[in-house]
């Protein structure tokens, strides 16, 4: 197994695939409790779109299948064994759209693509208007994107070239200004520079700038840089990349640093002996866009790049202060916390009322939860706009089907 140079690795004994990471998917299990699985082997597929498969992040024995309300899958947990058995995949014979799509579907890499609007896994025969590769991370204490991509430059390039072939749409590689990524095939692949502020690495910002979503019913796809590297690994080596690079940060962490870990690692194990004593809050993601985790068992979610642990006194949290009056009070603070071109206050009011049609007109289709995180934190009403937005998006998606 290849190890990133200069990065400490930390391996855990349990990893999981999380159901809530894949919105709108009804999982059909391809394995049973107690089965031994190879890493990269398909363990689940989508009931509605059976071509879409989900592969095991690690090799080992399936130890628990956790289900929640209405038997929705919450997590499929795997006890890691030492066999390091990996599933092998035949790289696509040609570079045409069909064979690349089939390869991605078969290897499970398709499930790392996301659509905007809605943030779903795209349909296997979907037609995007554009594809976005997020090759920067501007959030505080994020792992160094540049080092990681440069280490896996071959894989990254192979995957970007392949992704450019999955449709006729242009592929935008969004990168930081000091990190030039040169691609030869410049007719299809376009590079775009983003800087300025913590929001510079949100796909919503890139899409809003380069291919803004209107009301016409089209969609764009996006994918994160580590998932691109994982795809490149599959393409070049025929086997899955068993690593993700995450950073461990926050004022309650003893030794903040980047770590190479298994995808889907158990966060409790990762944090063992890393956190100062005393009460603390664990965030999945950065201190800006992170989502607070309940204590207990939790796993890295798909695309998670950071764990932030804050001491109990630092910062505030959303939705904690009970208040009977939840009116939105406009202020200048709110104006810059959302994508340009969207009026925050009318949108917040529409979300609060659950007025899906109005929210759609005001630009809700351009957004997913992470894009309204800052509004929830800044608004005096203590509304959780991420939840409200998801309700509205669910309504809109239901109407579209």
């Amino acid at each position, binding site marked *: 197994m290849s190890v990133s140079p200069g990065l400490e690795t930390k391996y855990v004994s349990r990893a999981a695939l999380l159901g809530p990471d894949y919105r709108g998917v009804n999982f059909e299990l391809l394995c049973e409790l107690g089965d031994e699985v190879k890493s990269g082997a398909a363990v689940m597929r989508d009931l509605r779109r059976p071509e879409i498969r989900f592969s095991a992040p690690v090799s080992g024995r399936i130890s628990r299948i956790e289900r929640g309300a209405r038997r929705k899958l919450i997590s499929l947990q795997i006890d890691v064994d030492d066999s390091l058995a990996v599933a092998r995949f035949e790289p696509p014979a040609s570079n045409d759209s069909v064979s690349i799509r089939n390869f991605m579907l078969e290897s499970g890499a398709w499930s790392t693509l996301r659509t905007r609007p809605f943030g779903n896994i795209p349909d296997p025969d979907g037609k995007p208007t554009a594809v976005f590769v997020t090759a920067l991370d501007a959030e505080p204490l994020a792992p160094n994107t540049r080092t990681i991509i440069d280490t896996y430059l071959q894989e990254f390039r192979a995957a970007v070239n392949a992704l450019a072939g999955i449709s006729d749409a242009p592929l935008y590689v969004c990168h930081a200004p000091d990190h030039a990524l040169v691609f030869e095939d410049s007719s299809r692949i376009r590079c775009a520079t983003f800087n300025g502020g913590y929001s510079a690495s949100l796909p919503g910002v890139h899409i809003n700038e380069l291919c803004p979503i209107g009301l*016409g019913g089209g969609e764009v796809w996006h994918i994160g840089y580590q998932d691109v590297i994982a795809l490149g690994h599959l393409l070049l080596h025929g086997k899955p990349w068993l690593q993700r690079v995450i950073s461990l940060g926050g004022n309650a962490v003893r030794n903040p640093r980047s770590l190479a870990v298994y995808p889907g690692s158990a966060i409790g194990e990762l944090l063992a002996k890393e956190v100062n004593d005393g009460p603390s809050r664990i965030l999945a993601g950065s201190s800006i866009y992170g989502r607070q985790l309940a204590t207990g068992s939790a796993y890295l979610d798909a695309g998670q790049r950071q764990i932030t642990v804050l001491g109990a006194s630092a910062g505030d949290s959303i939705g904690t202060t009970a208040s009977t*009056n939840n*009116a939105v*009070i406009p*202020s*200048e603070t709110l104006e810059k916390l959302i994508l340009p071109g969207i009026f925050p206050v009318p949108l917040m009011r529409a979300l609060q009322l659950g007025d899906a049609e109005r929210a759609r007109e*005001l630009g809700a289709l351009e957004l997913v939860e992470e894009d309204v995180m800052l509004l929830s934190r800044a608004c005096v009403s203590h509304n959780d706009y991420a939840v409200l937005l998801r309700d509205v998006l669910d309504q809109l998606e239901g109407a579209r089907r």
Partner: protein
Amino acid sequence: MNFLLPNSGNGRQRMLQLQLLALLPVSIAALVNTGYQYLVAVAQNNALSTDDFRSRLARGLGANHESLGLYDMLAAGFAHLVPILALALLVGGFWERIIAERRQTPMEPGFILVALLFTLLLPGAAAFGHVVFGMSFAMLVGRGIFGGDGKTFLSPALLGIAIVQVSFPGVADQHPLWSGLAGYAGSDAIAVYHRGGEAALSAIDIDLWSAFIGSTPGTMGTTSILAVLLGAALLLIERLIAWRLLIAQVIGLFVFATLFNLLGTGPGASAMPAYWHLLLGSFAFGAVFLACDPVASACTNPGRWIQGFTIALLVVLIRVANPTHPDAVIPALLLASILAPLIDHLVIAWNIRGRARRHV
């Protein structure tokens, strides 16, 4: 600015505390200037009866009518401002309590801000009955029926003061001390300008400097531009008010006033240069504390520009065209505030059209 209000917790409370803090310089200026105006009037007019409640209170606090020391001014100002404020708070708290009980919700402290703003917009000699009337109207029609803080459609204090102005237009004329030319509508200074231009202003000792620091007659809180600027700075730094709306009002005032100067025909307010428009009357106060009320103003950025220019146009227009209403700020703000949802509606419709035109 966090050091000013450590541990202020809940965002809504902190917002209210900052708004009250921003009104502190204005309140101090109101105390001093009200006292000063009172003492000057008494000194100039020996025949004046000083037997009313406020004069007795001022004397009781030890305000010396002969000399004009800082303490005398503060004591005399206290005798005028604090009874009105206390009454306004009492009335506001009373209605808030009743509304909260009827609704079975906790009392919201927002009425404190309403009472303070309302008080600062009254002349020092406002009748107590009018305070009760205006404050009740503000609390019930301006605030209560819409559901409290953050849900109002007009600034409650603005509505309260407007109803007092409309209902008792000439009442302050009857008061010997505040021989107001304009009654509650405020600015004696602008009325003076109307009649005699700059010469008339200098005859009653108003120059640019005194108008800036606020030692001019007028409603209590609105005379000192300096104090308003301090409050505005705090609100802008804390990003509580929209700078676009504020700047649009000031730019608009200069543009439209200059326009009228160029077109102007008479010696009245149409010849008044823009800086006098800004310095006299309650424009500055209204622009910062009433027009920029975050809930009752436009909530989109283009809408804020439009509303700001609308306010400026209305203020200049009413001042020029209607000498019986020399200050014009309150009706202008009221009209613009009523227009705000319409402005927002048009801006949003335009925004949606742009979104619908995208090709995705």
